[in-house]
């Protein structure tokens, strides 16, 4: 829904300083999901959210997504584990062909 608006905003921000703020805000919002945003960045983000509906929506969805990925049941293979699996599988594949 906000995807189209975001594209519009991105096209505008080359010559418009106000909308450039959205890019910065979403970046801070993304960083905040991993606790990597600075305090000043978070303050600016919150001020921005007061008047920007598009970013508010993005921020809310982003938060929901983070919450979901922190559920204990959402898991995936570590990089090393996957490589290990790939190596073994490759051998088996060659044996079969």
């Amino acid at each position, binding site marked *: 829904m906000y995807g189209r608006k975001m594209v519009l905003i991105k096209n505008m921000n080359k010559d418009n300083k106000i909308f450039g703020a959205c890019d910065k805000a979403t970046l801070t919002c993304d960083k905040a999901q991993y606790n990597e945003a600075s305090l000043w960045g978070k303050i600016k983000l919150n001020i921005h959210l007061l008047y920007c509906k598009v970013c508010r929506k993005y921020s809310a969805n982003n938060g929901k997504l983070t919450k979901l*990925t922190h559920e204990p049941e*959402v898991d*995936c293979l570590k990089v090393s584990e996957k490589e290990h699996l790939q190596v073994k599988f490759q051998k088996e594949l060659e044996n079969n062909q």
Partner: protein
Amino acid sequence: MSGHQINPNKWIDLYSDYLFNYTITRVKDRETAQDLIQETFFAGLKSMKNFKGEASERTWLISILKRKIIDHYRKINSNKGKAEVRMNFNFDGENEGDWLEERVADPFDKTAEDTLENTELGLAIHNCISKLPSKQAQVFKMKTLLGYETETICNELGITASNLWVIIHRARTALASCMEEKWF
């Protein structure tokens, strides 16, 4: 014959995380889960000729995996089976059928339902991740699900930090709208 093709070269990349998530919610042990999906892939290779193309590769692999998980529980249950549950059946007299009441599910116990919900959530997320371009999927998994440091990922993949944030942003936007359709 329908259009589903089989191509084992990409199996690990495409399906290992999905299968792993499916398994880990059922066996609760990383090592066992890995062994099971490895066996699944091997079994898939061996019976490739039997693949009729009626279902997608992933559905087909999941159906093999289900068998493997059942087999796994059968195997460990042979030792466990000794700890059997003894019930007093009360076949006669006024107490007949009392054991039935004892076995009724506790309505205040919601854990089974919760587990089911979470299982579906894990698969729903992996479903959405598998629709992302592979680079985005890889970075998102490393950053979000495995919790790697930004620097580690950048070194491993040879990208800059700002590059990483752009990829993360695209992945999150796509995932949020995918999950909005399927989940929220």
